[in-house]
C-alpha cells in the first residue's frame, strides 16, 4: 500500500541500504502503483515495520497553525500517544514523521527505558540531572529500544540532536510543580533494593539500604519495614510480605506510572491522555443531562442529551383498592410485585405486569372487632428473594407473609408501641424491626427455615437479638434513656444497619458484631433513611423539607435536595432510576419531586394526589420507566415514561378488561 503524502520538503539520510520513506529518492512516489521500484524501500513502509531501521530522522517543524484553536504540537503529541496506546505503531510513526513532533524527547525515552530495564543509577541521573563527568552507563550510542509499546517508534539518539549530553552537565527532566524529589528518589531506590533482595544479593541490598535509602531520612516506618524484609526466606515470601510484584511483574510499570505523575506533563504526557479527556467530557455531559435515566455509555459521536421520553412523567394508572389513606408502598426486588399499605389496615399486593390484585392481606384486622378502628399499616418490606413480605402496623405488631400464597408465616406482637419499620438482611432469613417503644426499640428477628413445620399461624415472637440503651431495667416498663426508632435501613452487603431515632439522631450498627459504630445528632425530626446501592451514602428525610445525602462513615452532609415540604407528617424518600441516578420524594403539598442524585438539581415536580400529602414513593428496580406514589387521597398512582406508554398502547387492550374496578387507566 502506497502511502501518499508529499515528502518534498523533507530531507532524509539513509544508512545501510534501507531508505526512509522515500523523500529524496530519485523516483517519484506518487505514481499510484502499489509497487515500489526502489529495492531499498522494500518492506520499509509497506507494512509499517521498521525493525532494525537505523535511519536518523531529522525533524523540521510543521507550520505551526493552530488546530481549531488548540496548539498543534499538543494535539499531535496526544494523538501520537493514543495511536501507540491503541497499538497502531506504524501509523504513529507515520504521524510523527509527518508532523515533525515526537512523543517524547530522548531524555524521557531514556528515563523510561532505564526504569523498565532496571538501570537505577541511569534512571536517577536522567531524572534529576547529573553534574559533569562522562557517564559510561548512559553512553550507549546505539539505538535505544523502548519496550512495552509505550513508544512511538525506535529512536536513535544522535549526538547532534541533544547537545547537552555526554560530557556536559545534564539538567535532568523538568518536574511538575508539586514534585517531591526525595520521595521520587526513595521510590527508585526502594525498587532497586527489593529487586536485589529478590535476587538474594543480600550484601548489595544491605548496602543500598544503608547508603542510599537511609540518608534520605524519609518515612522511617517504611524503612523499618523494608529492613525487616531481609529476613524473608524466599522470593515468594518477599513478594508476599512486601506486597510487591517482582521485577518480572508489573512493579516496574507501576513505578514508572507513579514517577511519571511527577514529571512535567508537557515533557511526559500523562498516560492515556486522550481517553482521560474523553471521559471528562462525557461525565460532564452526563452530569448536565437532566433526564438521564440510563446506565448505557453515551456515544462519542454526538453531545449527549437524554430526551424526556425515557423519564416517567405521566400518570399511567391509578389503583383504588384502599379505603383509607395509603401510607407506604414498595416494589419487590425483581420488579414483579408492588405492595401497598394504608390506614385501613390492608396490604395489597399487585402484579406489575397487569396491575391486577394478587393478594389482599387483612392480617392486622384479624383480631379486631368490626367496630374497632384499626390503626393502620405503616410499613411493608419485601425480602431480597421476594419470598416474604413484612408488614408493620400501628397496632403494635408485625406480620411476615409468604408472597406466594398470601398466608402468614410469622408474627410478633410483644410490643407495647407501634412497629414503625422493618429491614431485611441479604440472606432473606433475618430482619431488623424498629418500633416506637423504648423497651424493644430495635430487634433482630428471623423467619423459620424451609424445614420448619408450619403450625397455626407460623412462628411467634422469634427475636434473636435486641438493641437497647444500657442499662436496661427489666422491672421498669419504660426505659427513659432509651431510643425510639422511626426508620431503619440495612446496607446492600448486609454489614451495616442505620436507624433514625425519634429524638433526631442517627445510629449506625455493625451487623456482624451487633455493636454500635456511629451516632450522629441532627437538627430536626427524621422520617426516612436509605442506604445507597454501594453503601457509601445515606439518604434521610428531615422535617422542614430537607432531604439530605450523608456520608455513611462520617455523617457529613454531601448533598441537599431542596423543594419538598414536610412538617407534620411522615414523608419518605428513596433512590431510584437507572444507576440510582435520581432521588425521589413525596411532599406535603401533594407533589412528587425528583432530583438528580449527583448534582442535586430538581428534575421534575409532579402534581399527584390532589388534596393530601404524598406519603411514599417507590421506583421500580427493574423497569426504570415506572415509579409509583401513594397519597392521602386513598389512591396509588403509577407513573410511566412516554416510551413505556407507547409500547404499552402497542399491545392491545387485552389487559384493559382485567383491571375491572381496581383501577383507572389514563390512556
Amino acid at each position, binding site marked *: 500500500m502506497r502511502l501518499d503524502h508529499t515528502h518534498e520538503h523533507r530531507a532524509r539520510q539513509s544508512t545501510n541500504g534501507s531508505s526512509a520513506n522515500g523523500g529524496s529518492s530519485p523516483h517519484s512516489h506518487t505514481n499510484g502503483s502499489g509497487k515500489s521500484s526502489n529495492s531499498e524501500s522494500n518492506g520499509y513502509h509497506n507494512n509499517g515495520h521498521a525493525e532494525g531501521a537505523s535511519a536518523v530522522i531529522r525533524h523540521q517543524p510543521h507550520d505551526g497553525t493552530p488546530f481549531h484553536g488548540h496548539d498543534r504540537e499538543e494535539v499531535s503529541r496526544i494523538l501520537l500517544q493514543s495511536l501507540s496506546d491503541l497499538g497502531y505503531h506504524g501509523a504513529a510513526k507515520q504521524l510523527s514523521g509527518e508532523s515533525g513532533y515526537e512523543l517524547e524527547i530522548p531524555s524521557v525515552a531514556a528515563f523510561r527505558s532505564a526504569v523498565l530495564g532496571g538501570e537505577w543509577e541511569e534512571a536517577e541521573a536522567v531524572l534529576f540531572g547529573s553534574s559533569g563527568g562522562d557517564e559510561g552507563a548512559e553512553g550507549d550510542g546505539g539505538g535505544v529500544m523502548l519496550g512495552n509499546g509505550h513508544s512511538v517508534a525506535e529512536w536513535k539518539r544522535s549526538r547532534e540532536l541533544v547537545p547537552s549530553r555526554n560530557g556536559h552537565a545534564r539538567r535532568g527532566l523538568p518536574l511538575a510543580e508539586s514534585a517531591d524529589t526525595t520521595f521520587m528518589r526513595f521510590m527508585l531506590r526502594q525498587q532497586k533494593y527489593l529487586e536485589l533482595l529478590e535476587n538474594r544479593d543480600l550484601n548489595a541490598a544491605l548496602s543500598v539500604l544503608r547508603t542510599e535509602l537511609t540518608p534520605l531520612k524519609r518515612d522511617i516506618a517504611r524503612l523499618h519495614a523494608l529492613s525487616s524484609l531481609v529476613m524473608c526466606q524466599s522470593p515468594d515470601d518477599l513478594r508476599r510480605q512486601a506486597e510487591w510484584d517482582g521485577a518480572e511483574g508489573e512493579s516496574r510499570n507501576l513505578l514508572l506510572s507513579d514517577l511519571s505523575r511527577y514529571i512535567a506533563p508537557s515533557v511526559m504526557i500523562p498516560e492515556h491522555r486522550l481517553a482521560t479527556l474523553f471521559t471528562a467530557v462525557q461525565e460532564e455531559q452526563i452530569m448536565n443531562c437532566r433526564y438521564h435515566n440510563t446506565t448505557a455509555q453515551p456515544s462519542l459521536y454526538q453531545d449527549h442529551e437524554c430526551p424526556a421520553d425515557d423519564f416517567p412523567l405521566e400518570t399511567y394508572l391509578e389503583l383504588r383498592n384502599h379505603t383509607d389513606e395509603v401510607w407506604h408502598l414498595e416494589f419487590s426486588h425483581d420488579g414483579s410485585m408492588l405492595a401497598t399499605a394504608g390506614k385501613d389496615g390492608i396490604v395489597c399486593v399487585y402484579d406489575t405486569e397487569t396491575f391486577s390484585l394478587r393478594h389482599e392481606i387483612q392480617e392486622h384486622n384479624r383480631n379486631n372487632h368490626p367496630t374497632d378502628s384499626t390503626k393502620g399499616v405503616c410499613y411493608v418490606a419485601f425480602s431480597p428473594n421476594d419470598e416474604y413480605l413484612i408488614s408493620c402496623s400501628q397496632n403494635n405488631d408485625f406480620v411476615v407473609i409468604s408472597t406466594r400464597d398470601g398466608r402468614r408465616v410469622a408474627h410478633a406482637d410483644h410490643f407495647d408501641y407501634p412497629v414503625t419499620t422493618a429491614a431485611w438482611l441479604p440472606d432473606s432469613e433475618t430482619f431488623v424491626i424498629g418500633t416506637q417503644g423504648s423497651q424493644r426499640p430495635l430487634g433482630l428477628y428471623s423467619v423459620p427455615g424451609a424445614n420448619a413445620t408450619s403450625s397455626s399461624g407460623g412462628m411467634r415472637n422469634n427475636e434473636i437479638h435486641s438493641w437497647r440503651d444500657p442499662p436496661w431495667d427489666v422491672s421498669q416498663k419504660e426505659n427513659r434513656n432509651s431510643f425510639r426508632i422511626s426508620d431503619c435501613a440495612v446496607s446492600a452487603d448486609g454489614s451495616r444497619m442505620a436507624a433514625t431515632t425519634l429524638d433526631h439522631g442517627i445510629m449506625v450498627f455493625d451487623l456482624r458484631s451487633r455493636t454500635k459504630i456511629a451516632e450522629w445528632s441532627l437538627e430536626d425530626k427524621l422520617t426516612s433513611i436509605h442506604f445507597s446501592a454501594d453503601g457509601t451514602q445515606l439518604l434521610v428525610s428531615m422535617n422542614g423539607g430537607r432531604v439530605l445525602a450523608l456520608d455513611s462513615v462520617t455523617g457529613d452532609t454531601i448533598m441537599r435536595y431542596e423543594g419538598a415540604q414536610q412538617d407534620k*407528617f411522615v414523608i419518605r424518600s428513596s433512590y431510584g432510576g437507572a444507576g440510582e441516578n435520581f432521588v425521589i420524594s413525596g411532599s406535603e403539598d401533594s407533589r412528587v419531586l425528583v432530583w438528580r442524585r449527583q448534582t442535586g438539581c430538581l428534575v421534575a415536580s409532579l402534581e399527584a394526589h390532589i388534596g393530601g400529602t404524598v406519603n411514599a414513593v417507590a421506583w421500580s428496580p427493574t423497569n426504570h420507566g415506572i415509579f409509583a406514589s401513594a397519597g392521602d387521597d386513598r389512591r396509588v398512582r403509577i407513573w410511566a415514561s412516554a416510551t413505556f406508554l407507547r409500547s404499552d398502547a402497542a399491545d392491545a387492550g387485552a389487559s384493559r378488561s382485567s383491571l375491572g374496578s381496581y383501577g383507572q387507566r389514563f390512556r
Partner: protein
Amino acid sequence: MGLAYNVYLNSKRIYGCKNCKTHLADHDEIISRNFRGQHGKAYLFNSVVNTSAGEASERNMTTGRHVVRDIVCKQCKEIVGWKYDRAYESTEKYKEGKFILEQELLCQVS
C-alpha cells in the same frame, strides 16, 4: 391526614390520654392546679404534645370571657381539654397560649 408518629416525652411523671395512653404532657409543665373543667379538676399546662386543636369559640367562664379551642388526643380523637387563645380581662392574660387538661380524662403513664 398522612402518617404521623406520636411524640414521646422524657420525664418522671407523664400524663397521657386515658383512652389510648398517648403522652400528652409533662408533670413539670404544670403552671397551676387550681382550675375546674366540665368534668371536675383540671390543670393548666405550659405545653402539651400529640394534640390537635379545633375551632375557636368565645366562651364565658367563671373568670370572664375568653376565646378558647377544644383540644383532642391525636390518636383517639377524644377531647382532653382546651386551649386559651385570648383572654379579654387583663388579669387573665397569663393564660393566653396555654393549655388546660382535665384530670378526669388523663391518666399517669409513669
